[in-house]
């Protein structure tokens, strides 16, 4: 239960980090929070030849590495934004309360002291809370390499179970999360099988001036190889006045048609599906309740 041998680098500036990634990317991995990587090393499930520790990386004019930034319309996170900082941030709670709530379920407080938001996304666990929220809010991921950069949507970024579009020589350097508009409600429910979710459901609902749903964003963690966006259910809600009946219908459609859960020793696919349907219905209901509070 000990890590295998590797070489270790601690770049302090971004250029150096990207150079190292270009040189060692094929055999190397990035160490940020380490809360997902170290278990893999301890179990020897991964045996990289090189570790590039970015914890000493300093911000420069082009990249803020850890402080949470905000503009009118979005929040921005760097490669070293700790999960704990995100969780307790009043800025995040105000601008994106769904993200704030989901953060409380990630691992446990001690894990969140070291774990990073970017690292959670780069790890790509389909049962992870952060990949789910990034997916349903339409986060933009900025990937940097020595030769350039690219911006990916969640659908382009999350490819499969623990598999993302990150190339070995790229750093997930920044994540942009669009912020809630005024007439938006949210909901989040999870069955927490610490340190991860068994199943989680998230909902964000926006109403128009007449009180009808103008936009719904619905999704699941733990119900497929990537975070699952429930687009059919979203279409069902959009343009409608949302009542109990339509909430149940949408949750049912999402849980039956738009998922691909596994059966394993923890839970059967049908149990996961039952959880997903219940949680999504509750999440939409909570989103509506939060909207009502604002009137």
């Amino acid at each position, binding site marked *: 239960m000990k890590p295998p041998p590797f070489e270790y680098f601690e770049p302090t500036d971004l250029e150096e980090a990207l150079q190292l990634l270009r040189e060692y990317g094929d055999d190397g991995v990035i160490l940020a929070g*380490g*809360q997902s990587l170290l278990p893999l090393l301890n179990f020897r499930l991964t045996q990289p030849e090189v570790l590039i*520790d970015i914890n000493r990386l300093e911000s420069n004019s082009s990249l803020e590495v850890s402080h949470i930034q905000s503009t009118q319309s979005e929040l921005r996170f760097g490669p070293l934004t700790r999960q704990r900082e995100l969780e307790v941030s009043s800025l995040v709670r105000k601008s994106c309360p769904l993200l704030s709530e989901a953060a409380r379920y990630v691992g446990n407080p001690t894990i969140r002291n070291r774990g990073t938001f970017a690292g959670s996304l780069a790890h790509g666990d389909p049962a992870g809370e952060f990949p789910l929220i990034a997916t349903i809010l339409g986060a933009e991921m900025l990937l940097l390499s020595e030769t350039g950069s690219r911006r990916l949507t969640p659908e382009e970024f999350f490819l499969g179970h623990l598999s993302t579009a990150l190339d070995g020589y790229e750093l997930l350097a920044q994540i942009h999360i669009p912020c809630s508009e005024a007439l938006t409600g949210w909901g989040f429910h999870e069955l927490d099988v610490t340190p991860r979710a068994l199943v989680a459901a998230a909902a964000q609902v926006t109403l128009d001036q007449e009180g009808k749903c103008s936009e719904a964003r619905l999704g699941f963690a733990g119900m497929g190889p990537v975070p699952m966006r429930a687009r059919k259910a979203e279409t069902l809600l959009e343009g409608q006045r949302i009542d109990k009946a339509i909430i149940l219908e949408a949750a049912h459609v999402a849980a039956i048609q738009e998922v691909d859960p596994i059966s394993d020793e923890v839970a059967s696919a049908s149990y996961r599906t039952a959880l997903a349907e219940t949680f999504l219905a509750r999440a939409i209901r909570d989103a509506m309740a939060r909207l009502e509070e604002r009137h």
Partner: protein
Amino acid sequence: MATTKDIRLKVNGVEYARSVDVRTLLLDFIREELQLTGTHAGCEHGVCGACTVLLNGKSVRSCLLLAAQVDREEVLTVEGLATNGQLSKLQNAFWNHHALQCGFCTPGFLMTAQELINKGEEMGEEDLREALAGNLCRCTGYQTIIEAVLEVLSSKFLSADAESDSIDSTGGSSA
């Protein structure tokens, strides 16, 4: 081309300079190199909490940190809680409430709880249970652990010398 690293760090207020293999876990460095065996190796993948220490005042899993990562940092382990052989307020509360049986999980609980006490936030039982959910105990059923920590947390708001419950990285009471 680094496979070893020279590190300097403070542990319980004492400065150490060592050369470590880069793959040495902080947990094993503390236990084997420094002979501070109060920090325990449980699951070795971060879920049980037995290896918890304070790094610059924040609780961390020493099984998920490399010793090489804590150069120039300050670490507090369970051995740093008592002052001159006198148990801390939290340790006494654990004693009085019978919050340990085999004691294997106890150092991890003490360090996680100490972080909460140092923060000094008011906390009800539900929030405390959630805050301690990363530490697993097979013996006690948690009730007595919760009572012990609650006693110290609530006394922080009642006692005049609440400052002395905080324990900083140098160990022992800061009073």
